[in-house]
């Protein structure tokens, strides 16, 4: 069975190491904060200038001056820091953020990512995505393996305008965990009950399958 959004987020959360600084994009990546395993501590960075983002506020705690990068009301944890946008992107561009998790329209075998612009549709902007993919040490892309018409999103070469080049090393989809290296996708894990054949069928870019591919642990 293909994973649900929450199950993808659960698998993403297993990537985090104890003591990691993590930036989570909007959507499935944000859900990963709910599934950080016991015994692992991560600190969430929000690129509008907050390191140590906490949960959403109670009605009494709501403060118009406390928002996250998705412009949602938010709280800060004990030990958080708040700073300006240049400082925030200095920590992103300088490679100080350990993990960035973000969604994408397409990823290709060279680690290129397209996530912000579909020609012909209104372009709203890249926000901080280009900075994040150019700067973070480990970038994890979450997306469905194929679009709703069944077209693969893992391609030989991205067709949409890029967000960044040669930057994606790990992809977690509803079907599989893959690494990107040496001009190919490398299948590492499959979703419970999903066959290697199905993943091959839905991966348009070069896919390398070596040995027995284990099912994911969620």
């Amino acid at each position, binding site marked *: 069975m293909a994973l649900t959004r929450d199950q993808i987020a659960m698998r993403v959360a297993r990537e985090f190491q104890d003591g990691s600084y993590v930036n989570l994009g909007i959507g499935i990546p944000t859900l990963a904060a709910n599934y950080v395993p016991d015994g692992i501590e991560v600190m969430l960075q929000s690129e*509008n200038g907050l390191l140590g983002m906490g949960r*959403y506020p109670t009605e009494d705690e709501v403060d*118009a001056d406390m928002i996250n990068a998705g412009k949602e009301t938010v709280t800060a944890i004990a030990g958080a820091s708040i700073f300006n946008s240049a400082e925030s992107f200095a920590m992103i561009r300088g490679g100080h953020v350990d993990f960035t998790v973000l969604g994408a329209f397409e990823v290709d075998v060279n680690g290129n990512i397209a996530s912000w612009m579909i020609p012909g549709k209104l372009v709203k902007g890249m926000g901080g995505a280009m900075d994040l993919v150019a700067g973070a040490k480990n970038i994890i892309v979450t997306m469905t393996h194929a679009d709703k018409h069944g077209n693969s999103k893992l391609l030989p070469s991205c067709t949409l305008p890029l967000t960044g080049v040669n930057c994606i090393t790990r992809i977690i989809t509803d079907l599989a965990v893959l690494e990107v290296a040496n001009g190919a996708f490398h299948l590492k894990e499959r979703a419970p009950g999903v066959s290697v054949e199905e993943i091959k069928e839905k991966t348009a870019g070069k896919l390398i399958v070596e040995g027995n591919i284990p099912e994911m642990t969620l």
Partner: protein
Amino acid sequence: MSGFDKVVTSYEQAMQGLKDNMTVIAGGFGLCGIPEGLIAQIKKQGVKGLTIVSNNCGVDGFGLGILLEDKQIKKMVSSYVGENALFEKQLLNGELEVELTPQGTLAEKMRAGGAGIPAFYTATGYGTPVGEGKEVKEFNGRPYILEESITGDFAIVKAWKADRFGNCIYRHTAQNFNPMAATAGKITVVEVEEIVEPGELDPTQIHTPGIYVDRVIKGTFEKRIERKVLAKEDR
């Protein structure tokens, strides 16, 4: 005003000198930390052909979005502009030009502009539409693009408190782009919640030293919230 006293008492004084076709750098992230009264004054003055440099363009009827109502904005330099139907309409009509700029690059363009640095290299945007036509240089085997800094005729800033000398502190994430914007205006105007006497703010806690600030005005703020999301137990 005398000496280092930067305080003005009317919005007319605060935005005096703003003319058609000027560039205005505005602090704020979404509707958080925006100089509401200064934006309203720009609308009231009716100046046209403005280039506005700000991460976003407000929403319909609030924030920078109100400057679209009388078509005062010629060009927006922003990282994300998706919250505004009037914006979309003027963009599709060709009445409004947008230069989409990565958020970190935008912050750095303001910072560099205020610091006298005309341009800088960054990996952000290399190989993407943002990098098209820009100089590329390799450092340690990695390609970077050259981005030019930004300065404005005016910078409009929202701070929490300022003293009469223009020393400012910001509150929580309402800080965002404001400190960089403050450095990058030929005339920097700060709208604050509270004006205090020199010496009342701890010098080690100042975010924006008064040297960057030309005018300070006490405002009143609606502080509209764009997306109120509550903890599960309060939903």
